[in-house]
Structure formats: C-alpha cells, structure tokens
C-alpha cells in the first residue's frame, strides 16, 4: 500500500514546497506526510530550499510598520497547538449561580416571556447586503486593521442590521432578539464571564459561550456618549476586527452580532454614529475569550 502511495505522491514534494498544489491537493499531501517519515523529511528540505530562493528585497513604507505595531497591541496570540484557543482570561465563574440573586433577573425573564410571543425579526443574510457595502479600502481604518475585504463587507452588513436592534429608540425596536439571546447565553452550560475594566475605568462584564458561539457585554456604568458617537463591539480574529453590533449605554448590555469563534478577542471602541466597518479608534476594552 505504501508503495502505491509513494507512486502517487512521490513526485509531489517539489510542487508542495513551491506552493504549486491546489488547496485540496495540499491537504491530501499533508495527510500523506503524516504517514510517511521519509516524505516529511524531503518536504522539509525542499521547503527550506524554496525559502532560499527569496533573495529580492523591497523597502516597506513607514506606515506598514506603524500599522503593524498598532495591530499587534490588540491582536491575541495563539498557542503552540493549532486547535488551542488563546488562554482564557482570569476570574471566570459560572454565571448560573451568580444570576439567581440578580435583582433584575426576574425582569429579564418577564421580558423574555413577553417578547417570545412576538416573532423575532429575521436577520438578513450578511451576503445579501454585503454586496452593496464596499469598504473603504484605502481608508486609514482599513489599513489599520487588516481584514479580508469580503469578510469586512459581510460583517459590515450585519452591523447595519444590528444598529437597528441595539441602538433603536425602543418604540419600534423589539427587545426580543437581544433579550432572548442574552437569556439563552446566560443559561448556557459553558457560560464564561470575566469582569474587567475599560480604559475609562468603567466596570464591564464580558460573557460568552463557545457552545452557543455567542458573546455579550454587560455594564451599568458606561458613560453616555455624544449623539454622534456610539459604542461598537468587535470580534477580533485573524488579525482583524469584525463588527459585532452597537451597544447602547442605557441598555446596559448587548449581545454581539455574529458567531463567536474559539479564541476570538472581544473589543469595544467608540465610533461615529451608525458604527464603522473597521475600528477607527483605539479600543476602550479588549478581552480574550
């Protein structure tokens, strides 16, 4: 069998080292590498050889360096193991017990019960609106936080919808989706919560559940912002920040839009009203999950 494999994969080593395989072939070849020590050794040697071919140099702009140093200040690092998420923050407790004595827990349950009767508005698929919104590729913000553009556009679409829910007037905006999502999150078996402090000294609790792929931010003391500013939430991953909705200081909490991935970092920034596609200011809070 291994002979047949060698016949099949034997001459792929060069193409692999030169990144000339298709993604699918690359994956299959890497599986083969896990099975063959000889092939692994050859792949490593040819990979080293390929890197020696990189003899050109080019002068990077000063902006690239500045952007990177900004970015790493808020970009989490991964562990040595692929699957391992970034180390979780300190002071995690299970909230179920905490919440029993919470004086507004009843109100929340009541709200959730009432609003459950109303049908929750469907959130439009990001891709539908994503095509319309073009991120400002050359903008300061876009350079500041690198992000595959398609994802930024898709996530930006989500935040537009999220703005209507979280930042609404309370008249037409049903609290149901937020309330239900918050209640669901609080009931999650794997709920994590971290109490932390924003740069302005405000106490903020970050809650998340990997099972539900959901996260929320809760704070009673967020200072009111001028009308032309909003608190915006972000999920930071792969070196970029994905818009995850706005937070109304009055509301006291916000369930984040979008799916939380393992190892995401939660961020809050102050943005112009309506939110931004990428952060335009330094975060007031950064919390690893």
């Amino acid at each position, binding site marked *: 069998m291994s002979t047949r494999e060698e016949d099949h994969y034997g001459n792929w080593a060069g193409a692999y080292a*030169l990144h000339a395989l*298709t993604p699918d072939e690359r994956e299959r070849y890497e599986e083969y590498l896990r099975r063959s020590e000889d092939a692994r050794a050859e792949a490593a040697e040819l990979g080293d050889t390929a890197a020696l071919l*990189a*003899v050109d140099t080019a002068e990077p702009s000063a902006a690239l360096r500045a952007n990177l140093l900004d970015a790493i200040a808020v970009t989490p690092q991964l562990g040595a193991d692929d699957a391992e998420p970034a180390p979780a923050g300190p002071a995690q407790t299970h909230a179920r017990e905490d919440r029993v004595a919470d004086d507004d827990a009843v109100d929340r349950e009541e709200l959730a019960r009432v609003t459950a009767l109303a049908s929750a508005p469907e959130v439009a698929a990001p891709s539908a609106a994503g095509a319309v919104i073009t991120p400002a590729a050359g903008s300061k913000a876009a350079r500041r936080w690198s992000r595959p553009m398609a994802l930024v556009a898709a996530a930006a679409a989500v935040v537009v919808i999220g703005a209507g829910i979280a930042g609404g007037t309370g008249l037409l905006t049903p609290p149901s989706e937020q309330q239900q999502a918050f209640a669901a999150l609080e009931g999650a078996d794997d709920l994590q919560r971290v109490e932390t402090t924003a740069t302005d000294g405000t106490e903020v609790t970050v809650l998340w559940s990997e099972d539900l792929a959901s996260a929320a931010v809760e704070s009673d003391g967020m200072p009111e912002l001028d009308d032309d500013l909003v608190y915006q939430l972000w999920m930071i991953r792969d070196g970029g920040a994905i818009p995850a909705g706005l937070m109304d200081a009055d509301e006291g909490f916000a369930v984040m839009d979008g799916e939380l991935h393992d190892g995401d970092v939660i961020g809050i920034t102050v943005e112009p009203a309506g939110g931004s596609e990428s952060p335009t200011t330094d975060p007031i809070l950064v919390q690893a999950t």
Partner: protein
Amino acid sequence: MLVTMTREPERVERAPASLEDLLTAVAAGDRAAFAELYDRTAPRVLGLIKRLLIDHSQSEEVAQEVFLEIWQTAARYQPNKGAAVTWMLTMAHRRAVDRVRSSQSSRDRDVRIGIRDFEPGFDQVSESVEVSVEHERVSKALGRLTELQRQAVKLAYYGGLSHSEIAAKLSIPIGTVKTRLRDGMIRLRDELGVVP
C-alpha cells in the same frame, strides 16, 4: 538614605539577538522583539511578496497579513525544525501565492511572468551584502538546473503559478510538471547545500 543608581541588566549592551531568539520572544508576547524582528526581516519578506504581486501597495497589504500571522502564531515556530527566516518566508510565499491566485489582476500575470526572468528585484536602499551574496549563490544554483526544470521552478516560486497553470502554459502534462518541480528542487537543494 541615598538612592542607588539602578541599571536594567537586560538592556545594557546586549549582543544582537538571533532571529530565532526574537521569534521566541515574540511568541511570549514581546512587542519590542516583534519590532526588531520586523525591522530585520521586512525588506526581505516584502521583497518576496512583491516579486509575486508586483504591485507595491498590494504587496504591503499581504506583508501586513504575514507579519500579523507571525505575531499570532510565533508559538508554533520550532527552532529545531529550521531557521526563523525560513519559517517566515515560507509563510510569506504561501500568502503571496494565495493572493496571486485570488487576485483580480491575475490576468496580468501571464504577461508579467513572460517578461520577467531571474533579474534582481532590489530596492537599492535595502540591499545588504548578505542578501547580495545569497542572490549570487541562488542564481548560480538555478543555473545548474536544466532549462525545463528552471522554467517550472521559477514559474511556481516567483510567479505563484499552480502546477496546472504551469502545465497549461508550457503545454505539458501535470505529471510532468510535478516531476520537473521535484527534480529541480532536489537539484537546488543539493546545489545550495541544504542539510536535513
């Protein structure tokens, strides 16, 4: 009581750290080490990316992705498996190739690739003696390949072409491309003295 002058022993007259040491420090979240690592490798990383993408601002975008990935995944670098610069350049090449293949401007690639040969792509500012010597060595080693091997290796590494694109371009079967790439790389490995 008099305050004694304190010195921070870490900061006094340090010998220049190796790239491996810097990368290890980066893995521990050392941002100063990252800045130094960047300063010492960015021209080469960007040079490689630009070789594939040509466009400078696009190349900088990819370089930014690469260095962020380096920051995020530095803990995965294993010093016993190879040099830090190799690890970084491999990552840069993969990212550049991904960009080339997804880029809308890829239609320009055939033209570009057709025109370019293995000419130096230096920005005069950042060429170091070290790089220049290496350049010479690589040029020489590439000269030892057969014309067909060299063509295939260069299309793949400097052009970011996949084996099927190379096959189409040279009108040869994919299997032949794979064989040429492997034979060419093995020859290069031996010429350049890469030791397992």
